[in-house]
């Protein structure tokens, strides 16, 4: 990759300028996502890098509950600097500890060990995910009692359970309905195809606030005797239905696109060879469009997993999801716990993206195989 030999100075400048511009846009796209990762290991409750974070050093150590006494032992034991230095380090750490105690009222955890690094990085915000909301945060960490307290009382774990529960059921619903609809829409004889397609895609287009408000009012008036006599607001079912609705367009779009590349003569071949339509569907159509369905389902999953507006309107405290918890965190008391959650979410996104890419390539490979 180099400019052609006949390029003049202007062309050369343009050639390299253009590439620099493109790369900086890519950087603009990716940097904000990457930046949350180091920030989430900040010792201090700020959304920014501290000068210590750039002073890397070798380190050994372990995680201990964060308190003045452990700080003192650890600093004295792990540090090789002079007494004066130790005292300074100690004071500084205790100051930080007190400050964070005031701010979130929680016992944190610190990387206890070698001096320089322990001041810069910590996984206290990750521990916060487990400890925030615990009834008894003084318990010794990682013991059975601690885990059970954390599992049943941590706000973040509670929201995580909700998020996964809601997303899984919403995805199942939207993948089923969306796939069926996509199969219908790609039939040659589908009447009013464009109209139906437009209708089914619209939940993605209509502003989420309008959908949420509409559903909020609607759920107030719904009355399902025995099960939901006071409507669907503040109920899991309501949120699942809302998220399924928001996820279906993605399934419809991806599965329709997959079916577009689907060689129809395979269906005919199956029928011709004597298979009943059901057999053809399960033995031939399904295996071939499955990558498309899974991609669509993953889109639907991430849509539900990210969704916050509908949850704000129609979820109670009991149904809080991860995004709802983050929303509250950003609006109310902003601290790097959000960043550590964000980091985890980014890792999940990377996994989902990798899966979708893999499926897409697999699908392309399979399709590329059939002779054209």
């Amino acid at each position, binding site marked *: 990759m180099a400019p052609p030999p006949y390029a003049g100075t202007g062309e050369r400048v343009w050639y390299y300028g253009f590439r620099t511009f493109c790369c900086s846009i890519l950087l603009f796209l990716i940097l904000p996502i990457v930046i949350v990762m180091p920030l989430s290991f900040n010792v201090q409750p700020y959304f920014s890098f501290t000068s210590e974070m750039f002073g890397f050093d070798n380190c050994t150590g372990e995680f201990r509950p964060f308190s003045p006494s452990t700080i003192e032992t650890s600093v004295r034991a792990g540090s090789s600097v002079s007494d004066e230095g130790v005292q300074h380090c100690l004071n500084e750490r205790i100051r930080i500890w007190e400050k964070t105690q005031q701010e979130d009222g929680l016992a944190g955890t610190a990387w206890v060990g070698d001096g320089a690094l322990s001041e810069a990085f910590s996984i206290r915000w990750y521990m916060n995910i487990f400890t925030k909301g615990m009834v008894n945060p003084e318990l010794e960490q990682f013991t059975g009692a601690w885990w059970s307290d954390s599992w049943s009382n941590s706000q973040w774990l509670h929201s995580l359970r909700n998020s996964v529960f809601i997303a899984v059921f919403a995805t199942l619903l939207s993948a089923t309905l969306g796939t069926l609809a996509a199969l219908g829409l790609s039939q040659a004889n589908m009447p009013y195809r464009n109209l139906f397609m437009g209708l089914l895609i619209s939940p993605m287009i209509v502003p989420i606030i309008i959908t949420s408000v509409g559903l909020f009012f609607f759920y107030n008036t719904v009355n399902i005797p025995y099960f939901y006599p006071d409507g669907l607001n503040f109920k899991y079912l309501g949120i699942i239905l809302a998220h399924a609705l928001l996820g279906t367009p993605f399934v419809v779009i991806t599965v329709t696109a997959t079916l577009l590349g689907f*060689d129809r*003569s*395979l269906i*005919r*071949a*199956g*029928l*011709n*060879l*004597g*298979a*009943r*339509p059901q*057999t*053809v569907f399960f*033995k*031939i159509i399904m*295996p*071939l469009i499955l990558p498309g369905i899974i991609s669509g389902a993953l889109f639907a999953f991430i849509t539900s997993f990210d969704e916050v507006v509908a949850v704000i309107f129609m979820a109670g405290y009991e149904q809080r999801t991860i995004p709802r918890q983050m929303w509250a965190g950003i609006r109310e008391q902003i601290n790097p716990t959000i960043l550590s959650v964000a980091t985890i979410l980014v890792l999940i996104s990377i996994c989902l993206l990798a899966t979708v890419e893999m499926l897409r390539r697999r699908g392309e490979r*399979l*399709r*590329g*195989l*059939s*002779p*054209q």
Partner: protein
Amino acid sequence: MAGNGASGDYAVRFEAVQKSYDGEILVVKDLNLDIARGEFLTMLGPSGSGKTTCLMMLAGFEPATHGEIFLNDNPINNVPPHRRGIGMVFQNYALFPHMSVAENLAFPLQVRKMNKSDTEARVKRALEMVELGAFGGRRPAQLSGGQQQRVAVARALVFEPDLVLMDEPLGALDKQLREQMQYEIKHIHENLGVTVVYVTHDQSEALTMSNRIAVFNDGVIQQLSSPEDLYEHPDKSFVAQFIGENNKLHGTITKIDGKKSCEVALDDGQTVKALPVNIAGVGEKTMLSLRPERVVVNPKRGECPSVMDAKIEELIYLGDHIRTRMRVGDHDDFIVKVPNTYGHEPLKEGAKTKIGWHTEDARALDWYTGTIDPGMDD
């Protein structure tokens, strides 16, 4: 062999079948056709002539808008495709990409609930028949075009159907492979005795393989006869032009002398003799069809009843014959094939000569003005 022609002994019968896709244009217009048991029948025609639609109706993938199709005396309009028991080789083979070759072949047997050992034996036999015994474990994508084609044929035959349909099965292959596969399919047909309905737009394919050829144009069968008849005795201008090379001379009938001869006044004024085949009567327009190899160059006196002046425009040396383009009357695209026989008189570009023909070689046909796309683009 095939087609003894006794009434009722047919594999397939189309009765007054019509088909329209849009409710306005008929792509198949009132089709009546009987296909004998064991016959190799080819539907030949340019694209859009309705031949593939006929095949799809027979396989059950397109409903006929009118008429009835019979398979072994039974009407099948209301039989779904999977219960028709007709084998089919698709244009792009339609091998299931997610199954191995053996799985593809086993599929029709499995859906028929055949037991495992029989299935395996049959699959093995079918693969051996197409000389792909070692390829059972491969995916279709790992095979060459010719191999995929053979798998497709084997799959269509593995469940031993009485009738096999082939929809331009050789279209995706290169010329050499195509010719080889033509013979292989022909031999399989001869060995198994199944009825084959074959669709193609390639006339040489049709002439090589078929017992009978139905030439389609504009939704109508133009002529249905054996390959020799089709070439030697075309009934219609369309058929004469579509099959093989053909010289056209336009004129008007001036006199009919019984069944063997008529006189035609050509548009440039000369009067020639021809065989009346498909003409309306004296005073009507007609098109004479003359095969290039039947034209006599420099005929001896009295050899040909019809003789015309010609000028040699272009000579192309083709080894076994010399292809000669001549100006005859007001046409300059009159083609004559001069065989490269011992001692034939050398021809020169620009030279003047005479051409002639025997009356039965010039067939007076209907006046056809439509353009013909012989579909030989590949």
